[in-house]
């Protein structure tokens, strides 16, 4: 058993768990934070995306015990009913989902992706590596390619992200 302290959405959690427990399973099965979803469990779908120390990652492909002391933001930490984050509200306004299963991962991923673009990170489709343009639809699609939507709500997901990212990059 490994002892791990996790700071999740600003609150300190104490975890005693087998070394095999992924961050995703720690969140869902040990700590009751079921907003983060398990899709493929192999880093292919992005449903499990959370933000660790400011970076979006696949929580299914990392061990909880490797995150001792880390600050983690999950969908529950971004907003709540009555106090939605800008992206959460935009996903509602633009109908950026159908079944909703990929949505927490989409929103966590997009939240951090917008910060990456603000920091000037280029993407594979950036014409100029040194001075990447803002978040065009092509840029949003490329940067969000690690989040699959089985219902194919992509056009509305892009619309929601574009609304929030507009003028911010």
């Amino acid at each position, binding site marked *: 058993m*490994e002892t791990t302290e996790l700071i999740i959405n600003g609150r300190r959690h104490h975890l005693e768990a*087998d*070394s*095999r427990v*992924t961050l995703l399973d720690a969140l869902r099965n040990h700590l009751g934070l079921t907003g983060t979803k398990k899709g493929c*469990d*192999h*880093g292919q779908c*992005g449903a499990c*995306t959370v933000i660790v120390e400011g*970076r*979006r*990652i*696949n929580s299914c*492909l*990392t*061990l909880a*015990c*490797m995150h001792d002391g880390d600050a983690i933001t999950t969908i529950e930490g971004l907003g709540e009913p009555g106090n939605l984050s800008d992206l959460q509200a935009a996903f509602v306004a633009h109908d950026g989902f159908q079944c909703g299963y990929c949505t927490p991962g989409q929103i966590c*991923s997009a939240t*951090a*992706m917008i910060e*990456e673009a603000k*920091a*000037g*990170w*280029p*993407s*594979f489709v*950036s014409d100029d*590596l*040194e001075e990447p343009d803002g978040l065009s639809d092509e840029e949003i*699609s*490329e*940067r*969000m*390619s*690690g*989040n699959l939507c089985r219902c194919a709500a992509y056009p509305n997901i892009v619309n929601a992200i574009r609304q929030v990212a507009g003028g911010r990059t």
Partner: protein
Amino acid sequence: MRPFAYARAGDRADATARASDNATYIAGGTNLLDLMKLEVMAPDKLVDISRLDLAELTDTEDGGLRIGALVTNSDCAADGRVRQRYPVLSRAILAGASGQLRNKATTGGNLCQRTRCYYFYDTAMPCNKRAPGSGCQALQGFNRIHAILGASDACIATYPGDMAVAMAALDAEVEIESADGESRLIPVRDFHRLPGDQPERDNILEVGDLITAVILPPPVAGRQIYRKVRDRASYAFALCSIAAVVKMEGGKIASAALAFGGLAHKPWRDDEVEELLTGQKPSAELFGRAADQLLAGARGQGSNDFKIPLTRRVLVSVLGEATSQGAAE
């Protein structure tokens, strides 16, 4: 996943001292944990090196760049020096995986990523890389993504990465610290192996060896291009990729460093192709001869036969762009 002991290394010496035959270092873990969940890999012990002091990008005295082994793919691709001086490396990294994975994947770990051969992943199938001596199901099976160069009767797997292909073209070196504390430099192009009769060995690392950095030499003037052909526009492995660093002088090719991904068990470089191009005036005829030379020993296995004409077309196109001759078909 099989049970394993977990230990966090305090420093490099602690990490290498904890090494043993069935212990594995873990840093980003994105490839290793995927394989451990499937029990393709089942180490007894994980030595967590993720907090070692190896996450810096620093200028070297000769004008090159030292990329610490724990620099993430995201940080490397976004680094201003890499973008300006080694754009082929930035482009190659950004061509791979997803934003989430690049945030976790490290420079050292990415070098060690394992093949995506379907039969390596399928524990119900024979695979000489996963279970030495069991046979190679890919030879008789579906082998669309498999090697056309440098394969053996024991294994036709490919090295799947993008980053190392660019590093091979840039003549980068891998800095490795062994268990006795000695440090050595191995060219990236010699780091990965051909499968031969030991396909279980992807690279030249020995037990206890710890990758500490990748060193880029000072950049060569000229065009740097990374071209990747894949089944999807994003988030897919290369069927064929080319990293090209080409310098022109007086209308002739002064130097051409070309590394190929998706074709072999390692990033592929062919000195004879580069020599054939050097000193020559670019032309469709020249590019065709370069492709002939590159593919002289190419062998398809059925489902991957298309890679031979595909690679020819991609090479001709990349050389055309690199020498500013346009599409030189």
